[in-house]
């Protein structure tokens, strides 16, 4: 081992001691910075991934519409899409708001169809076991599956009856007809763990939905689910070309673009603010190392007398900054993993689980570790700490041996 590396290491971790006070405090400072930065980034990544998954799971990968108009004669389109490699399922979907009366209390959920005849669905209701207290197979033309949180808010139980009025009743009122509600039996609850869906969506059969919206054999949209791992954006481009602008084609990413961008922006802004912790830590490392140079002036002079070159003396201090950066980064990563591993009780203690569900629509705090974030956070911290050692290093390298040895 080079002597300057050896002395640098020994000044941080002296013989007979675990570590010097300076090293411990500096490493802890950097570690807290990394914990703040990487921890925040991981949680934000988790939010992004989880929200993305929930959006995809509740909306499907690709949505084909006729620019807001109902779509008819879809058999040809359906069979054409079914023959395309990579498409897992093609679902004709009708959806729209309705008024629902439960014990004379009105609510306005978004009704979504489920094709009970073909069973084909672009959202993974069966795979993800989205229906609780019942089964999707129990859904027929006279029944409804209601979002779990919506049901809880309205005090609905399985077996209750609800009355549904569709917007088409307005036409009947205009014709002086008495609008009659459709009475449906509640046969289960929809529980996707995405609060937005669970508190505002209800499922009915496609045939019932067509009847409520006077769609005949039509639908509002065609929803596609792709095989896992396929990029919906490029797939949508391909379909768009094939359909020659007859229909509008969007993906779950473009449909929720603004929302997803806000989450990304939040991550960047929070990272920028938390980076300040690492900068403050590096300033304190710089001050401590500079003080060390002033305190050890005679020792530095002696090293020079024994044959140490100025560049090596400079390296000795730069390497200390580097060591602190590396040790602080590794400790910070370990702390991040440890704290995020035990995040549930921490969240429960600090904000409460209900707040998480209410504001972020998640039952658990999501976390996603990304190697790129870890590398960039640690790289930044190590570079900054090494730079922090540079000023003291230059001061040490510039010391003249004779003056250093005379230092009082």
């Amino acid at each position, binding site marked *: *081992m080079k002597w300057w590396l*050896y002395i640098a290491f020994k000044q941080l971790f002296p*013989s*007979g001691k675990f570590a*010097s006070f300076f090293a411990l405090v500096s490493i802890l400072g950097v570690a807290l910075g990394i914990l703040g930065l990487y921890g925040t980034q991981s949680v934000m990544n988790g939010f992004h991934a989880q929200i993305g998954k929930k959006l995809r799971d509740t909306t499907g990968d690709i949505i084909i519409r006729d620019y807001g108009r109902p779509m008819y004669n879809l058999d040809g389109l359906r069979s054409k899409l079914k023959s395309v490699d990579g498409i897992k399922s093609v679902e004709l979907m009708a959806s729209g708001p309705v008024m629902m009366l439960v014990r004379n209390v009105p609510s306005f959920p978004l009704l979504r169809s489920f094709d009970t005849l073909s069973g084909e669905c672009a959202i993974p209701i069966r795979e993800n076991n989205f229906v609780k207290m019942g089964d999707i197979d129990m859904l027929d033309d006279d029944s409804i599956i209601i979002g779990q949180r919506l049901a809880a808010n309205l005090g609905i139980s399985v077996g209750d009856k609800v009355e549904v009025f569709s917007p088409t009743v307005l036409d009947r009122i205009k014709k002086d007809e008495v609008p009659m509600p459709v009475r449906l039996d509640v046969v289960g609850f929809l529980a996707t763990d995405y609060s937005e869906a669970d508190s505002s969506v209800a499922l009915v059969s496609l045939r019932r939905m067509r009847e409520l919206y006077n769609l005949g054999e039509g639908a509002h949209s065609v929803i596609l689910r792709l095989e896992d791992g396929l990029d919906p954006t490029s797939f949508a481009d391909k379909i768009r070309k094939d359909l020659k602008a007859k229909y509008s084609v969007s993906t779950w990413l473009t449909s929720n673009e603004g929302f997803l961008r806000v989450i990304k922006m939040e991550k960047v802004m929070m990272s920028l603010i938390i980076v300040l912790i690492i900068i403050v830590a590096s300033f304190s490392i710089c001050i401590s190392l500079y003080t060390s140079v002033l305190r050890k002036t005679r020792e530095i002079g002696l090293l020079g007398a024994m044959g140490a070159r100025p560049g090596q003396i400079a390296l000795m201090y730069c390497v200390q900054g580097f060591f602190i950066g590396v040790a602080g980064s590794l400790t910070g990563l370990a702390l991040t993993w440890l704290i995020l591993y035990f995040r549930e009780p921490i969240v429960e203690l600090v904000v409460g689980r209900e707040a998480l569900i209410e504001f972020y629509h998640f039952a658990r705090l999501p976390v996603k570790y990304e190697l790129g974030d870890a590398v960039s956070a640690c790289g930044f911290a190590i570079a900054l700490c090494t730079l922090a050692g540079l000023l003291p290093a230059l001061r040490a390298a510039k010391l003249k041996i004779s003056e250093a040895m005379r230092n009082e």
Partner: protein
Amino acid sequence: MNNPTQPGILCAKSIKKSFRSPDGGSVEVLGGVDLEVPSGHSVSLVGESGAGKTTLLNILAGFELPDDGSVLWDGVRIDKFSNSQQARRRAGFMGFVFQNYCLVPELNAVENVELAARIAGKFGKSARERARELLDAVGLGGRMKHLPSQLSGGEKQRVAIARAIMNSPRIVLSDEPTGNLDEKTGESVMNMFFKLCSEREVALLLITHNPDFAARCDSTLHLSAGKISK
């Protein structure tokens, strides 16, 4: 100039050095000093405080440049070397013992001694072994793992002496090695120092105020008014 019987390994020829005084004038410290330390000999340098002994040592060691004159290490003018070459050469050619010991506080006794070998790029198992032997030789065999803060002044200076000898230098330059020690401890340290240098045929240039230690050297030089006299 000395009158050596062997060729000088450290020579100074017509060394002149002045410093600027705070009032802008110039103070001449060395006014043409000639000096020669023969191989294996001990030479003491005495003089009043402020006579320029330490300045001369700094110039001889290459820490400072003279205004005029030249310094030769083993017959080679040191101004021929770049700073980096000079540092490399110094590591194997010279050892130093200072009044303030200058031990690295984070290293224990044996690590402080072997540091000299590390800087000279000679570190290995044999260096560790030699550091142990030297500490044994200075009577610190039982204190190898002690940190400087756990050693007395005399013990610290013994570690510094072992470190100065570590690379088998041709000469050791020593500036007031007993300045911080009481009389008895200083006597004991110097006994050991003279013995080590003589056994290993290492030349010694000793700056001291102690006439007894000066008298034990092979020759004594007086520095006064910027000139050397015997």
